[in-house]
Every structure is written in structure tokens, then in C-alpha cells.
């Protein structure tokens, strides 16, 4: 790699259901200003700007073009990435390659979604192959229903465990002022919420949030002069997979090897991570449903196959405990889709800086793994560290 890449500034809006007070450009501007303030930089010092957004959700074609002024892109290099739910992560990867290439010293990466502007579900209906798949598996709920059902059948996990995972997320979210849903929840309340597609209940799914997130990446020279302690993005891995449901594209954890397993294996191997649960201090995973947490913990090799629900039962994933997962409250609490993958990176960086405030993990945080998830179980993974 030509240049090491550091996170030198970060910012996000307060996420919520509706933002009638701003248009998307103004919303983005809030996050950009916060990130610049955090980095103590002027927009003039930014060399390139990368945007992540799912175009059809708001119905804007070339939405990046419409937010040039608010995003600070005027007469700057940059472009838009869109890979679905992963796009926040993909945009961070794009920024990473910009800095690593040695051609750009400081890159601003922005992810956003303003889901009050249109119907996300209407757009998601078009996310499947039109001839065979579109009629049977639109949207994300069905994916998590197959995932949850399969997981219960194979491991002995009960609905109560997924509900407990959701309660832990809510407890975390209440300590994070940026989070969207911050309810006081009990396992019973989750189990009493209405069924969407069994076993996925209303409270198991992420909300349709409005929000933006901005991240400033810098090269080594820039990181040395950074206002805050730089957090290094040591490595990254993107793995996609085919889409067709009838060939197993969206059905996990079986029948074939999953993108998350492939990505995790490659990333761990390159970075000498042999015991992920010990080597990694904080996890910010993109789990849009609490049901996804179990299979993904296992696919990321945090524990043995079939054991994740036991770790949740022991509440090992809480902020105070040994394997803190999603201390921010996760995607199930906050989901401005184009930003969600990036918020994982931002939240992990806050933890490694020791600046997460009320939701700072109890253990000493020096390394973190984040994922962005989307489309047909695609994943973008990042390995963050305090160490140069």
C-alpha cells in the first residue's frame, strides 16, 4: 500500500423518522460541518468527496449532483457509490483507496438517506430479479425470517433470545444520543409486538431513519497533524455474491459458504487475527434485524457454530462485558441506509478514541471490526486499530 489511512474526523446527524425541517442537502451539511469541526479542518483542505446513497429510495437520479453545495464538493474531485445497504461501507472503502493511492491527502466520505422523502419499501420491491424472485422475496424482512427460522431449527435458540438481543440493543441505544430508536424495552414487549414474517416481529426490524454521516480520512502526514487521536483503518475486504434466491443468493446461513465467512477469513488471515473474540475489542456489525446477530456472530468466527445465542443469553455482548457488540445500539436502532455502513466505522472509531461517552465500552478498546451489509447478503468489512 502506498499510504496508510487514518480516520481524522467524524460526524453524524441526530437520526430520526422525519426531517421536515431540512432537504437532503441541508441534512448532509449538518454531518459535514460536524466532521470538519471534529477534525479542525476547513472544507478547503479536503481534496475529494465521496457520496453514498441508494438512489431509488428518494427517487433522485444523480443525487450527488444535487448536494454539491451542502456537501462541500464544489470544484472538488469525487463521485457517488451505490451498492445497496453496503454503500456506506463501500464509500469508506472508496475513500480508503483514494488515500492509499497516494494521490489524495484528505478525503471526505458522506453517507446519507432521507427516508421521509419517499417509500423505501416501494423501492426495495425492485431489488429482486423480476422474472423469478420479485414476487416472492421483496424487502429485507423475508431474508431475516428464513435466517431466524433456520437458526432456531438448527441450534435450539428460542424467540426469547432474539428478543433479548433486541433489548440489549435498545439499552445501548439509550446511551447514544445519535441513535434513532431509544425505547425502554423488555423481552416480553418484543415478544408481544406483531409478527411481520414469523419469527421476525415488528420490534426485530430496523426503523426507516433519516440521517447523514461524514467521515474524514487522511494520509500519514495529515494524521500526524490531526486534531484528535487518529484511528487507522488497517485493512478492508469487500465480498459480494450472486442475487438469485433460487440459487441460494439470499438464503443464509445455508446452503453454501457465505460472503461474511469469506470476507472474515481473508481479513483475519492477512492481519494475523487468530482468536477474533479475544483479538478484537469492539464489534460494530450491520444487523438490520436482531435475528441476524446470531448467524453473523458465528460467520465472523466470534464463537463456534450454534453458540451465539448462548453468548447473548449470558449477555456477553453488553457494553460492560467481554465481547461488546454494537455498543451504539446498532442498525436495528438506527438505519439511514446509505449512512448505516459508515456509522459502524464512525462508532468504532469513537470507541477506539475513547470518546463514545455513555456508551464507551468498559474494556480497553484498541481494535475493532465493522461490517456493512446489504443486497444479497453482501458485506464490506473493516479492521480498525489504534496502533499505527
Amino acid at each position, binding site marked *: 500500500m502506498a499510504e496508510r489511512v487514518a480516520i481524522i474526523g467524524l460526524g453524524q446527524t441526530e437520526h430520526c423518522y422525519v426531517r421536515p425541517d431540512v432537504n437532503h442537502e441541508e441534512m448532509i451539511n449538518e454531518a459535514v460541518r460536524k466532521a470538519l469541526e471534529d477534525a479542525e479542518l476547513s472544507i478547503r483542505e479536503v481534496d475529494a468527496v465521496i457520496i453514498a446513497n441508494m438512489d431509488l429510495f428518494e427517487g433522485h437520479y*444523480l443525487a450527488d449532483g444535487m448536494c454539491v453545495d451542502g456537501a462541500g464538493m464544489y470544484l472538488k474531485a469525487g463521485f457517488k457509490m451505490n451498492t*445497496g445497504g453496503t454503500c456506506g461501507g463501500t464509500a469508506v472503502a472508496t475513500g480508503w483507496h483514494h488515500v492509499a493511492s497516494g*494521490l489524495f491527502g484528505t478525503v471526505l466520505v458522506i453517507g446519507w438517506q432521507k427516508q421521509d422523502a419517499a417509500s423505501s419499501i416501494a423501492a426495495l420491491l425492485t431489488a429482486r430479479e423480476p422474472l423469478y424472485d420479485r414476487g416472492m422475496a421483496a424487502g429485507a424482512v423475508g431474508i431475516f425470517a428464513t435466517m431466524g427460522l433456520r437458526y432456531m431449527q438448527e441450534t435450539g435458540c428460542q424467540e426469547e433470545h432474539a428478543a433479548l438481543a433486541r433489548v440489549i440493543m435498545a439499552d445501548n441505544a439509550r446511551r447514544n444520543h445519535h441513535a434513532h430508536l431509544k425505547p425502554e424495552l423488555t423481552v416480553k414487549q418484543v415478544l408481544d409486538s406483531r409478527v411481520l414474517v414469523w419469527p421476525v416481529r415488528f420490534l426485530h426490524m430496523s426503523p426507516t431513519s433519516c440521517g447523514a454521516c461524514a467521515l474524514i480520512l487522511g494520509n500519514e502526514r495529515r494524521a500526524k497533524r490531526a486534531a484528535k487521536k487518529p484511528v487507522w483503518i488497517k485493512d478492508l475486504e469487500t*465480498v459480494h455474491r450472486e442475487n438469485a434466491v433460487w440459487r441460494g443468493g439470499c438464503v443464509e446461513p445455508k446452503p453454501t459458504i457465505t460472503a461474511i465467512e469469506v470476507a472474515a477469513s481473508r481479513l483475519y488471515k492477512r492481519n494475523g487475527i487468530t482468536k477474533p473474540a479475544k483479538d478484537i475489542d469492539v464489534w460494530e456489525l450491520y444487523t438490520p434485524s436482531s435475528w441476524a446477530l446470531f448467524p453473523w456472530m458465528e460467520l465472523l468466527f466470534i464463537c463456534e457454530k450454534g453458540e451465539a445465542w448462548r453468548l447473548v443469553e449470558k449477555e456477553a455482548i453488553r457494553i460492560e462485558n467481554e465481547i461488546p457488540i454494537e455498543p451504539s445500539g446498532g442498525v436495528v436502532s438506527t438505519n439511514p441506509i446509505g449512512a448505516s455502513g459508515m456509522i459502524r466505522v464512525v462508532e468504532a472509531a469513537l470507541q477506539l478514541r475513547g470518546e463514545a461517552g455513555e456508551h464507551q465500552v468498559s474494556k480497553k478498546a484498541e481494535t475493532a471490526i465493522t461490517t456493512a451489509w446489504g443486497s444479497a447478503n453482501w458485506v464490506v468489512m473493516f479492521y480498525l486499530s489504534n496502533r499505527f
Partner: protein
Amino acid sequence: MRRKVGIVGVYQTKFERKPEQHVQDLVFEAVKGVLEKTGLEFSEDGNGIDGTVSCSQDHWDGWTISSKNVVDAAGGHLRSEEKVAEDGAYALYYAVLCILGGHYDCILVVAHTKESQVDGRLIENAGLEPLYSRMLGLDFTSCAALQARQYMEAYGVTEEQCAQVVVKNRRNAMDNPYAQESMILTVEDVLSSAVLSDPIKILDAKPVSDGACALILAEEGKAKRWTEKPIWVEGLGCCYDRHYLGYRDLTDPLSLKEAAKKSYSMAGITIPHKEIDLVELSEFYSYQELLWSEGLGLCDPGGGGRLLEQKQIPINRSGGLLSGVPVNVAGLNRAVEASLQLRGETGKRQVEGAKTAVIHGTGGVCGQMHCVITIRRGF
């Protein structure tokens, strides 16, 4: 020490309306084509392609996450695939950065669009900011007409000069077997064709077209091993202008100038019109070829018409967009054509002795964002 990145192989489909082909077929044909041409395969062990950068737009595909549509055809199954939601030139630009950064050694770039399956005017209308501009009913053609008129008024460029661009490009397309529409036209034919949005006539605009392009990039060592005719990517630049037409001087393509400046300075080009042998640019409308030549620094502001008449630099020897290349594919197709030229593989449309070429892609209303890539023959 910075790495060097080379174009190893290229492929383009025939451009035409393809009602019998699914978008996935277009991508599959392009990817298969470039794999066969180069003999390369997807690989984990560093002996082949280790990443894909795709380019398409959800709106044109009518498909949320349009890369999902083509991920398997583009070699993305259990592999890295990232979609640039911008013109195809940006996908090439990004793939070069990915290799320069060292994470990848060899990347497949693929772009597709099937324009014939949707009403492009509705999509372009959605490409305008929603509160003030969209409800006026504007599309990119009506906005381009404003730009064309303003440009003509400012510099005395005539409709005849714009028509000459059409005559030249459609004539050039006769030498290009991949081009959609080629014919011998007269200036009079163009001037008397139906008006879309004054002063833009139907022949001044790019026809509706379907197709795909694919290209393989590799770092220096591998590029040299895999091809006898490497083309080096030596300059990169891209830039955004403002969105609102009222905020811009439409006769001054600021973002193009900036992108060209970056690209040329990286490639060590100081006098563009002397050092560049060949230009493939993205002219969605005839006047844009003149205006973009000015932005690319090939002549002074207002000199686009004269540059065309003097025929100093071969611009769009392929026939350009006016002969029919789909949006998004446009920029990558410029790269494919320019690479084939430098490789000396373009047959009747060959520009003899071409060593340095400039690739231009653009997106947004009235050329809001531009991408300029400079390539050189490496053999």
C-alpha cells in the same frame, strides 16, 4: 514509488437497440469477451482478476441496487465488486486508484445501460433538484438547449458549426462496426431535422442505444506480462460543478477545466493541443463537442468551432456518442475506443501514430461533473 497501471484488454458490444437482450446478457457478453481476448480469469492467487468495479444506474435499470442485477455476470460472486453510480469513465478512474493503493493488482471494469427499456426523459427529470427545478418539467435536453443557446450567443458559434459535428461523427461511425447509427449527412439534413428543444434538433442529440463495455486493468508488472501492447493510465482528474443552472456560467465548463488540469499535470502535459494525439469525448449533444474541446484546453474559449474546421486533433474518430452509445457506458466506451486506437487495432478508423490519448466522461445536467483520463501507448 507510485505504481503504474496499464490497460490490458478491452471489449465492447455492438451498440443498438437490443429488445431481445436482458441487461445481464449485455454484461455477460462484455465480460466474456474481455476474458477471452486477454485469456485472463478471476483468481484468488494473484494470477488473474482480483476485483470488479461495475458502473450502472438504478434508475436506468429500474432496479434498486443495479449491480445486484449483474453481480454474477461481472464476476462478483464471493468476490469483490463495487459499483460506481456515475459515468463509466469514473469507474475506470476508481479502478486505477484501487490498484495504485495496492489492495488490488488487477481489476475488471464493466459498464452497461439498456436505454431502450425506459423513458430517459423521466429519469433526467429526476436528475434535477426536486424543490425548484424538477417540477418545471425540465429534462437534460431542455437544459442543454439553454446551455447551447447561451454558448452560441456568447461566442458567435453557429448552428451550422454544431451540425458539422454531427456530420463528422456520423461519417466517422461508418468506419466503426460497433457504432449504432452511421450515415453520410449534410449540414442541411441536420438543420432541417425535427426540433427537440431549440436549438437542439433530433440529429444534434444522441440516439437511444443499448450496450456494454468491459476493460481490464493491471499493475505494471502484470500488465507487461499479460499483454504485448500495454496502455498506461498516466493522468486522472475529475471534478464537480454546481447543480443549479442559475449558479453557473453555462458557457464556462469550470469543472471540466479543473479535471483536465489535474489529469494533464499528472501526465506531464503542458500544451494539450500539441501533446495530445487523439481525443474521445462524451458529447450528448453536438454543441458539447465544441464546448468540451474548449474545456479540455484544446483551444481558447469560443474556439471550438474553429478547432473543428481546422481538423488539427482527431476528436471522436469512433463516431462519438452521436453515433449511439448509452449513458453510463459512454465514458468507458471512450476508454475502449482510445485504447484500441493506441493499440493500433481500429482498422479503418485508425489514427496513425497516436501515442497519447485523452478520455472524457461526464454526468449530470449540462455537464455538471467531468472526468478526464490521459493514457499513453506503452510499447
